[in-house]
């Protein structure tokens, strides 16, 4: 009896997603009902869409940590905001990068205390980096970390300027608490001690918990909300229903057709903002394989893609087409005007694509389909994980576009794990892939065309799946890492964009949007396009800026 039901449920799980749209559009006919907590909500209520239940794990080094740990409980020395490109000093008031790029000195803020009343000191920072490297790794370039009074000095084995943001945005944990913990990697840290605005865990339950004010916060005037309540949802649908119904204040999850489903129910108070500051989403071509090793083929394929269609159909208009710098909206200030002025290979142009392919020797046969040099058909797969319905339709749009230039591209959509294992080993034709995102474009270009990230086919790699390396780019990346002068860095990034635009290591599609919607019925002071002091993400370093800016709606 129950047995077939179980099988059926697994099969139908995917259908739930599409059906939710139906239910949600149905909802829009009704006025929003008052929330379950009553009309006067004092706790900022946020849904978490991918955790059916919570586990009381506030260990910031754990990859499966409870939400808001790294945003509300612990803080970092500085905060970089990709929406406007500014850096806000946080636990550090200032920093000094050495001339040779091999060290940085941070000056810590005076008067910061942990939520248990102990003062925040340099030793905390030193200990945090020991723990981070021991448990999660990374920071391979870091040589020593030393504290002296209220300054902390980081030295590097090689000049590495992107370190400022990596080190600066590392969240800091208290040494006096963590030094007593025997196995920090397995610690659940049920009662966390942090410097953040909301550190006191209350009412921890399987499907909700509350974070209350840190009694010793260093900016008490900014703790204007009483606390944060997190709600657990096993999927977007439940979280979307809660948002549509007005039961939550903030909706950071993906919502289909947001104007209809969410905004239209209370246009006065509800709004959304999807800045294109996420990672660039690329159509990656396996450059270790023919014909994708030919730059003309890559550019021709890129011109055959109608990015307007990709973003409007595939991404429901939530983002914008990419340009030939390959940089997402997070790097707006880095974009080179010269490269932008000369963007031909990212513009939709079927004639040019056809001409380029003809020229490269992939002539059309009698049936109008192109063939390879050996006479076999010009056909390949586009791999994408079946769970990402939006990217799946992106792949389908590309496949249709390519039919117009005589190329057969089959969309291959198994489970993400299968897709990614193909990417990692280089055993794929093409795929829709994310890219590295960091405050500077260094990591992005390194993963896109640095020779140091290229592995042979069959060797596992976790970036540069498309296996493209350029000596010129690698040299520029090394120069960038060695430079601490902003003007010089800008010049190097301009050159990197030239190399990128010339070689088309991947086909950039669109910058990933940073979802975020909210209602200001209970709280106000949300970031907007006009006032982009943070993004609407609940998992970004900028989230704490939002938490310290929101205030109850009644407090005019």
């Amino acid at each position: 009896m129950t047995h077939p039901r179980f099988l059926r449920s697994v099969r139908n799980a995917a259908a739930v997603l599409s059906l939710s749209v139906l239910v949600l559009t149905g909802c829009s006919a009704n006025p929003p009902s008052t929330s379950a907590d009553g009309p006067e909500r004092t706790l900022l209520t946020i849904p978490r869409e991918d955790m059916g239940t919570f586990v009381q794990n506030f260990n910031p080094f754990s990859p499966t940590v409870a939400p808001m740990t790294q945003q509300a409980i612990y803080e970092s020395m500085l905060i970089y905001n990709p929406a406007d490109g500014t850096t806000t000093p946080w636990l550090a008031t200032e920093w000094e990068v050495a001339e040779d790029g091999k060290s940085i000195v941070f000056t810590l803020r005076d008067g910061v205390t942990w939520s248990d009343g102990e003062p925040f000191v340099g030793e905390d920072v030193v200990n945090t980096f020991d723990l981070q490297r021991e448990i999660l790794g990374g920071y391979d370039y870091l040589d020593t970390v030393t504290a002296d009074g209220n300054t902390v000095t980081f030295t590097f084995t090689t000049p590495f300027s992107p370190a400022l943001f990596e080190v600066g945005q590392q969240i800091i944990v208290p040494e006096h608490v963590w030094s007593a913990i025997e196995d920090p990697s397995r610690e659940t840290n049920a009662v966390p001690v942090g410097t953040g605005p909301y550190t006191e865990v209350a009412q921890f339950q399987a499907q909700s918990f509350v974070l209350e004010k840190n009694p010793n916060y260093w900016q008490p005037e900014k703790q204007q909300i009483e606390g944060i309540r997190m709600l657990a949802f096993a999927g977007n649908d439940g979280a979307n229903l809660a948002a549509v119904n007005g039961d939550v204040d903030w909706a950071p999850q993906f919502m289909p057709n947001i104007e209809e489903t969410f905004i239209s129910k209370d246009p006065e108070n509800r709004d959304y903002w999807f800045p294109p500051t996420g990672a660039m989403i690329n159509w990656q071509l396996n450059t270790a394989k023919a014909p994708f090793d030919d730059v003309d083929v890559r550019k021709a394929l890129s011109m055959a893609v109608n990015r307007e269609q990709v973003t409007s159909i595939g991404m429901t208009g939530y983002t914008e087409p990419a340009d030939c710098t390959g940089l997402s909206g997070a790097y707006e200030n880095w974009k080179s005007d010269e490269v932008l002025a000369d963007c031909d290979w990212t513009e939709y142009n079927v004639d040019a694509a056809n001409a380029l392919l003809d020229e490269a020797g992939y002539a059309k046969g009698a049936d109008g389909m192109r063939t390879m040099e050996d006479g076999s058909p010009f056909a390949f797969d586009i791999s994408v994980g079946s769970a990402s319905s939006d990217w799946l339709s992106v792949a389908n749009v590309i496949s249709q576009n390519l039919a117009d230039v005589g190329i057969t591209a089959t969309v291959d959509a198994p489970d993400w794990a299968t897709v990614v294992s193909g990417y990692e080993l280089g055993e794929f034709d093409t795929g829709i892939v994310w890219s590295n995102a960091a405050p500077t474009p260094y990591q992005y270009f390194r993963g896109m065309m640095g020779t140091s990230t290229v592995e042979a086919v069959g060797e596992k790699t976790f970036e540069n799946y498309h296996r493209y390396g350029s000596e010129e780019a690698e040299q520029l990346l090394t120069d960038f890492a060695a430079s601490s002068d902003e003007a010089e860095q800008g010049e190097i990034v301009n050159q990197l964009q030239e190399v990128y635009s010339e070689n088309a290591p991947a086909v950039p599609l669109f910058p990933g949007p940073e979802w975020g919607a909210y209602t200001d019925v209970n709280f106000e002071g949300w970031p907007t396009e006009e006032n982009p002091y943070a993004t609407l993400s609940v998992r970004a370093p900028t989230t704490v800026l939002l938490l310290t800016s929101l205030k109850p709606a009644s407090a005019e």
Partner: protein
Amino acid sequence: MRFILRRLGFYFIAFWACITLNFMLPRFMPGDPVSRMFARSQDRMQPEQIDQLRRLFGVDDRPIWEQYINYIGDVLTGQMGVSISRFPTPVTEVIASQIGWTILLGGVSLIIAAVVGNLLGILAAWRRGGLVDSGLPPLLIFIGSFPYFWLAMAALYLFGVVLGWFPLRHAFTSGLEPGFTGEYLLDVAHHLVLPALTIVLVSIGGWMLGMRNTMIATNAEDYIIMAEAKGLKPGRIMFRYAARNAMLPAVTSFGMSLGFVVGGALLTEVVFAYPGVGYQLLAAVQGLDYPLMQGLFLTITAAVLIANFLVDILYVRLDPRVRTS
């Protein structure tokens, strides 16, 4: 006694086969937990951290037979290890924290569906051609053939969103202190109505139809005519003579369903955001969380086998033919 021993032997072999399958199946899936976590986090994780995470989670690189021997040992000693998708929480704790809700939801709806469904089946067969017999089965089968999640969403929309009679999510109102207070129990019951209702609606038709059909067969037996001839009250004949003999298949299905209750009702849990192991199992499969998957499969296996064993024993009591054969 010999019967029970023989059954025990059979269950032992079934158990071994099940736990071996539980071990093999997840390992046929491509990738490993860390790649999956990386794929899901996309740009949020650094590539440099992957090896470290493998070490942290203790992803096994040993030969498969060595892992198997180890696994059998762990199963027998009740050690299920640490969940990867819920790291560093032990698997037993993850399961223990949610299985209560699963059993509550699954158990309540199973009991209601079985009891009401069987009673309706008895009535329908007893009054053949009556209103219950001609009207209900088509209606219930009609409802039962709806996609499960559709019914759940329709109920959620109608009774939760439009009418506002029932809460939209979770097992109890967030912030309410769990405890044996009237307020809390009422709140839990209030939250249970919609999810349980949809499961009952979907499964009740099967119970009713099954009971009705066997009942019709028993109604034609000579001993029923005999009982009628003796002038016994119709109610007594219906329940003590006909229904009692028609009950055996229903007991079997009930035992089977009882075992599967611990597997959770995935879609109900997802639609109503109800806590339970169904979603946990889906998440474990998607995240290739071997320890949690094994733990959940083991729990389900054990529950199904135990339920079956209980039914077997019950059969000895209910059906004399089993005893003699």
